[in-house]
């Protein structure tokens, strides 16, 4: 992931001087409106995460569902945890997993048609230099097909990392030890490479990470 992409996905509102999520959530137990700031920080990212897995319509619905669940459970949040990101992604992931068949259908549809309903029609694909839209579309099509055959647990691990979460955060979101997450990731990446076959294009680095 490029630095620009990583920066763009940092949740807003965590600048110096702003209360962290833990404090906001604790305060929201007394003043519920304070939870609005947590929503403002993370909603767009959560929406994108769900949209990638289920499409935009489902994301419109599930982003509210995610925060509703969080809002109702806010009393149990550990205020010493400054970032609610793993917690919120964990809730979103569980909601997505309830629709795993829809998710598989969604990825298969992309693989079949090459049309990605979640993609921004006006934005150029964020690819490394010189990659044309058509190339990216082909790659995404094959990637979607590969994601469709992964197990839910493997897909969860991969897509949380693709969303910019660290290993630690992804493990926290899934409620598994970091070692378990690493194992899942290694397996998922191997399967993905097998499914993608010769698709590992413009592999200027080629390096494992």
């Amino acid at each position, binding site marked *: *992931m490029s630095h620009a*992409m990583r920066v763009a996905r940092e949740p807003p509102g965590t600048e110096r001087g702003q209360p962290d999520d833990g404090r906001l959530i604790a305060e929201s137990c007394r003043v*519920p*409106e304070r*939870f*609005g700031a947590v*929503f*403002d920080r993370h*909603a*767009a990212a959560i*929406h*994108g*995460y769900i*949209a*990638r897995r289920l499409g*935009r319509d489902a*994301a*419109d619905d599930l*982003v*509210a569902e995610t*925060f*509703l669940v969080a*809002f*109702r459970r806010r009393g149990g949040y550990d205020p010493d945890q400054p970032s609610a990101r793993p917690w919120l992604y964990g809730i979103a992931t569980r909601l997505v997993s309830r629709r795993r068949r829809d998710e598989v259908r969604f990825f298969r549809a992309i693989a079949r048609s090459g049309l*990605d309903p*979640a*993609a*921004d*029609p006006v*934005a150029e*694909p*964020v*690819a*490394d230099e010189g990659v044309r839209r058509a190339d*990216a579309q082909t*790659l*995404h099509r094959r*990637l*979607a097909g590969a994601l469709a055959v992964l197990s839910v647990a493997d897909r969860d691990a*991969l*897509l949380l*990392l*693709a*969303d910019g979460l660290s290993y630690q955060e992804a493990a926290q979101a899934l409620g598994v030890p970091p070692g378990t997450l690493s194992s899942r990731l290694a397996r998922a*990446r191997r399967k*993905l*490479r097998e499914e*993608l076959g010769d698709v*590992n*294009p*413009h*592999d*200027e*680095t*080629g*390096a*494992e*990470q």
Partner: protein
Amino acid sequence: MNEMNLLEEFRAVVAPPDEVTLTRARARVLEGGPAGWGSQRARGPRLPGSWPKLALTGLAAAATAAAVTVALPAQGGGPARPAAANPVVKELAYRVAVAAEARPNVQPGQWVYWQETARSSDTPVGPGPEGTFQVWTTANSAKAAYLSKGKVVFFPCGHAGSSSGTGCQSIGQPVALPAGQGEAVSGLTGKIPVSYADLSSLPSNPVALDRYLASLPLDGWGPAPVRDFEIIKELLTTYVMPPALTAELYRALGNIPGMAVDYHAVDVAGRHGIGFQITLPRTAGGEIDQLVLDPKTYDLMGQQLILAPAAGSAAGHVLSGTAILKTVLVSGPGILP
């Protein structure tokens, strides 16, 4: 590029959510109920009585529509129950309240410079170009002054130090207009329903505040929700209140049944803003009364009365309104910022 880079790229092409979707979701969350905004809209029975209940149309239409409301005609049947506040309106009102709370504190006797422009059916009302005028009031409106030939002249509002202490606490800001023998003052008609001194004793809970304001015995101010809105509008455009009080009024505004938001409001100075609005009953003209706020800072921009869709091709025409061009705390009357 390896498979992780490809995945990240696959994630990065996802279109960002639109603002309306997030606003809707946010309102639904802060409402906290299992029904949420969507199902409230779907299941709401039509209310009895003559006062129409307003409901949001599909928010996708909000991007193109001038206002996001549609009036559901009230019909008989079903038990009477209070109309609910619109969660989208409430959400915005609470945001405005947060912005209001962050403003500096103001003492009742603090002088304030107001520069405004007023129009009535496209005709400028103020003495200056395009209907602009300037006036100085104390934050509590006990005193008001204007400049006449370079000299400060106080509006004749009665004695601010009298037992009532209300002085110039009439609705809105007074205007001095050129007349044959000097200046004539206007805008001093109508006593504001809540004196500045009484503001601090208003209920702090927004629902209780709405209930209290709507219960004030004011003949000709319309049914309870309209009366409530009108009082809040007059307080906001007349006084400069302590931030906490201003915030309370905005929260109360968001809880008024029938309130709507116009994301494409334009004030009488031609500036774009966000409008909190309510439709007056047909017996009172059926127009839309609107309070316009800056869409970024949530500063108050003005108020206006607009022809409703029932007016056909004239819909949206401003019957009368005032735009606040500047509000600045100054050290005394006649002092320019």
